[in-house]
C-alpha cells in the first residue's frame, strides 16, 4: 500500500450519498467475484449483469458525493483510496458469497429493500438523487424478480437446496436491521425531504420477504437481535480483504487508467 488514503469531509449529504454508493459498490464487487465461477452459465451472466448495474449506480452516487463535497475527490478516489474504516456500507453486502444460497439470500434481502427504497427516493427533493433513483428502480425491479424466483426454487427444491437456503437466511438475518437505521444527520435530511425514512418501508419489505419465503417453504427467523456498525465504519473482517483486492491496482500504480 503505497498511496495515502484521501480525506472526505462527510457532511450529512456527502455521507448519505457515500453510504448508498458503498452499498452498491461492495455488493457489486462481491457479485463480480462470481464472474466465471457461477454454478451455471445463465447465472454467471445474470450475476455479472446485476453486478454491472450496481457498480453503475455506485459510480453515479460517488460522482454526486464528490460534487457535493466540492473538493478534489472524484468517483475513483472515493472507491480506491479510502481504507476499510472509511467505508460506510451495510455489513450485509460485504458478507462473503458463501454457497449459492448465501449469495442469493444476501441479494434477496438487499434487493427487496432497494426496490422499495429507490421507488420512494424518486420523490426526493434532491433532483440528482431522484434521477439516480429513477434509473436504479428499473434495474432493481429486475434484480428482485430474478432473485425471488431463485429463493423459491431453492427453498421449494431439493432437501439439500432447502437446507442451504434456510441456513443462509438464519445466518444473514442479523445483518438486515442496519438497513433501517437512521442517525441524526440522516434524520435532518429526511425532514428536509431529501432522504426518505426507511422505517416507512419496513412493513412492505417484510411483506415481500414473508410472501416469497413462505412460497419457498422456508421460514424467517424470530430473532430481533441485529448487528450494526457498517454505517460508521466498523466492519466485519471480510471487508478489508475485499478492499485489498478491489484497490490493489490503484494502490500499487497510483492514477493508472485503462
Amino acid at each position, binding site marked *: 500500500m503505497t498511496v495515502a488514503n484521501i480525506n472526505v469531509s462527510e457532511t450529512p449529504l456527502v455521507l448519505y450519498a457515500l453510504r448508498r454508493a458503498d452499498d452498491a459498490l461492495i455488493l*457489486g464487487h462481491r457479485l463480480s467475484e462470481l464472474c466465471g465461477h457461477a454454478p451455471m452459465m*445463465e447465472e454467471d*451472466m*445474470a450475476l*455479472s*449483469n*446485476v*453486478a*454491472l*448495474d*450496481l*457498480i*453503475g*449506480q455506485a*459510480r*453515479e452516487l460517488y460522482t454526486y458525493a464528490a460534487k457535493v463535497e466540492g473538493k478534489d475527490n472524484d468517483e475513483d478516489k472515493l472507491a480506491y483510496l479510502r481504507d476499510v474504516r472509511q467505508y460506510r456500507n451495510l455489513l450485509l453486502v460485504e458478507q462473503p458469497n458463501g454457497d449459492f444460497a448465501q449469495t442469493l439470500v444476501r441479494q434477496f434481502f438487499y434487493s427487496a429493500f432497494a*426496490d422499495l427504497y429507490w421507488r420512494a427516493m424518486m420523490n426526493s427533493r434532491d*433532483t*440528482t438523487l*431522484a*434521477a*439516480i433513483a*429513477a*434509473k*436504479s428502480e*428499473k*434495474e432493481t*425491479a*429486475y434484480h*428482485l*424478480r*430474478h432473485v*425471488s*424466483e431463485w429463493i*423459491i426454487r431453492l427453498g421449494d427444491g431439493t432437501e439439500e437446496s432447502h437446507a442451504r437456503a434456510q441456513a443462509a437466511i438464519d445466518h444473514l438475518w442479523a445483518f438486515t436491521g442496519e438497513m433501517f437505521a437512521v442517525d441524526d444527520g440522516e434524520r435532518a435530511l429526511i425532514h428536509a425531504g431529501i432522504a426518505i425514512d426507511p422505517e416507512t418501508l419496513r412493513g412492505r419489505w417484510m411483506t415481500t420477504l414473508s410472501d416469497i419465503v413462505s412460497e419457498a417453504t422456508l421460514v424467517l427467523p424470530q430473532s430481533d437481535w441485529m448487528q450494526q456498525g457498517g454505517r460508521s465504519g466498523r466492519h466485519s473482517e471480510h471487508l478489508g480483504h475485499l478492499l485489498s483486492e478491489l484497490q490493489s491496482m490503484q494502490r500499487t500504480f497510483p492514477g493508472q487508467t485503462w
Partner: protein
Amino acid sequence: MVTVLERDSELRQRAWDAAANVVDPEIPVLTIADLGVLRDVVLDGEHVEVAITPTYSGCPAMNMIALEIELALERAGFRQPKVRTVLSPAWTTDWMSEEGRRKLHAYGVAPPQASSSRRALFGEQAVACPQCGSNNTELLSEFGSTSCKALWRCKACREPFDYFKCH
C-alpha cells in the same frame, strides 16, 4: 444572405446528424438516435455539447459511445466537442424509434414490448421469435449477453435469440 440564426441552426443540424449516426457498439445496427440515447445538441459559438442518457447505469457501451460522438463531431469539423450525461428523465425503451425496432428485428433481436410488469414473478409474456415469427417461445435467462438483453429460445424453430428487454 444567410443570417446568423440560420447559420447556427444549420450548424446545429450538422452536429446533430454527426452525433446521431454513431452506433451502439454492442448492437451496431442501431444508432444512438434510434435508441433514444441522444437527447440534445447545444451549440455555443463554435463549440458543441451533446447530451446523452445512459440505458443502464453500468452499461459499458456508454464510455465507447461518448468517445465515438467526440470523434464523429471532430470529423465533422467541430473542435473540442463535449459529451454530457443526463440522468433525468430516465431512459426507457419507449424512446426507441419505429425504425430502430424494425432494424433490431431484422438483425435477429426481438424488439422491446410495450411495458409489461417488471415485478411479476415468473412473468408470462409472449415474445415472438425474430427468426420464424412463432409465439411458441420460452425465456432461458432474464439476463443476457448485455445489460439490455434477455436470452430466449424458440420452441418452433429451436433457435435461441436475444430479446431487448423492456425498460
